[in-house]
């Protein structure tokens, strides 16, 4: 009798927990709104453009030729090239605790005032506490625009090269 009761209660508990877990998942409408198209023709060199994707700020930074020339291989690997111009496109949230770093045009870097973290113009962390570079979202280059949320060929190549890890 005890075993039967236990089995029935166990099945019920698992079912209830599964339903509770699923009801807290993001809604389909939230997941579906996950694509954004950004027109890059308006971007000016060394001026930070902030867009929005999945409620998060997206940093778009068009690099000047001098910036590109001075870059290390690690930095260049994170560039997204559209029509011959190099861009940094990343989620503008500090990888420490998710604050928004500010871009300093003169110093060509990002500073997060909250906990003192710094990133270079390729979004790579240069000063702790952030543990990793700012994240590059899934993207697909289409002409002069880039679609966020879609995994294009350039994105897959970056992923294979281990740039995104």
């Amino acid at each position, binding site marked *: 009798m005890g075993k039967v009761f236990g089995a029935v209660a166990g099945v019920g508990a698992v079912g209830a927990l599964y339903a509770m877990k699923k009801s807290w*998942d*993001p809604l389909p409408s939230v997941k579906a709104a996950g694509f954004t198209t950004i027109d890059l023709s308006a971007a000016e060199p060394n001026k930070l453009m902030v867009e929005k994707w999945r*409620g998060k*700020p997206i940093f778009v930074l068009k690099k000047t030729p001098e910036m590109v020339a001075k870059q290390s291989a690690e930095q260049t690997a994170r560039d997204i090239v559209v029509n011959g111009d190099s861009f940094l496109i990343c989620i503008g949230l500090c990888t420490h605790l998710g*604050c928004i770093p500010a871009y300093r045009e003169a110093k060509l870097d990002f500073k997060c005032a*909250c906990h003192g973290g710094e990133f270079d113009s390729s979004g790579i962390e240069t000063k702790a506490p*952030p*543990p990793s570079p700012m994240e590059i979202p899934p993207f697909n280059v289409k002409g002069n625009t880039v679609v966020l949320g879609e995994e294009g060929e350039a994105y897959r190549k970056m992923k294979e090269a281990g740039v995104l890890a």
Partner: protein
Amino acid sequence: MAHFTKATSVHDWLNQRLAIDTLQRVLSKEYWIPKNINFLWAMGMVLAFTFGILLVSGIFLLMYYQPNVDTAFDSVNYTIMREVDFGWLWRHVHAVAASVVFLIIYIHMLTGIYYGSYKKGREMIWISGMLLFVAFSAEAFSGYMLPWGQMSYWAGMVITNLFSLGSLEFNGLVEWIRGDYVPGQAFLDRFFMLHVLLIPLAILGVIGLHFGALRIPHVNNQDGEEFDFDEEAAKYKAGNKKESKVIAFANDFLSKDMFVVSIYLIFFFYLVFWHFGFAMDPINFDPADGLKTPPHIYPEWYFLWSYEILRPFPKDPGLVAFGFAQVIFFLLPWFDRSPNAVPASRRGLFFFWFWAMVVDLIILTAMGKLPPVGVYSLIGEVAAYGFIALWVILPFITRNEKRV
């Protein structure tokens, strides 16, 4: 069914059905309290009172608050503050009580530590008390989200990001907690539910456990004197009240409790009417904006010490240190190896440990509020290491303590 007779009075009618005489005897008239305790032992009653104030003011706020990302900010800052008659009163009472309740909790905790009231036999009182601290912290955090201002939003962002557990990158867990990629409608709704229903229910349950845990070991006293409560109670009941070391909770000790509560309420309403601003953050009077971070994110004063333990370290060690700070107080009854349940002033090295801990917590609190630059960052880091070091040495300095 029990045998019922024709009632001789309303009291008798109720007594036959609910045994109110027995209840009164067990809960108040023959609930024994040591005579030798000071005003610090009234903090439990002060807390119970403050919780009642939070409950009542919360119910009035609930009648006009709207848990919607578009209307929440205005429902608090316009409707409740300007339109609802006395809405400002409920808000200020609620906000001040939410802040002051932590002040009293800390006094209550430190009193317990100073007098050794967590020691052998009283571990469950300590653990249930710490559970209440955690529940109150969750209650305060979820409530802080509801006005949906800038600090609400970014505090929500930062604290939920902690659940990615650093380099483990559990981003799916964070999105599951939020119900969205960022704090949004789903987030606000579920924190609203937690704040007004689930956590208060848990708090009520744990308060019951906390009170129940007192029954068998009884309340400690100012000298840490061990005496036989049954024997002392017998003296009291025989009319030997002067020689007895205990008094009844009601109405004897309750009158002292209520005196302290009265003084406290004068202080409390002084804050509500003249200094309510300390419980409000100026940044939270800007509506939430997911594309703009406030220059400096910090929690309310009562979380600053644990926030400062998180902050000076790199991400993963910071999280470990933060986790350590959250759970370590639970283990106090086992870290303190001394058999003495007496005031810290009679325990030698432990006396210095206690005050070092108090000073360290104050330094952490002060540094947590300041921006993490230069010398403040360094002082904060030293104090964070100091906190951990104090816990590491506690078993060693208490192990050889002489029995008093």
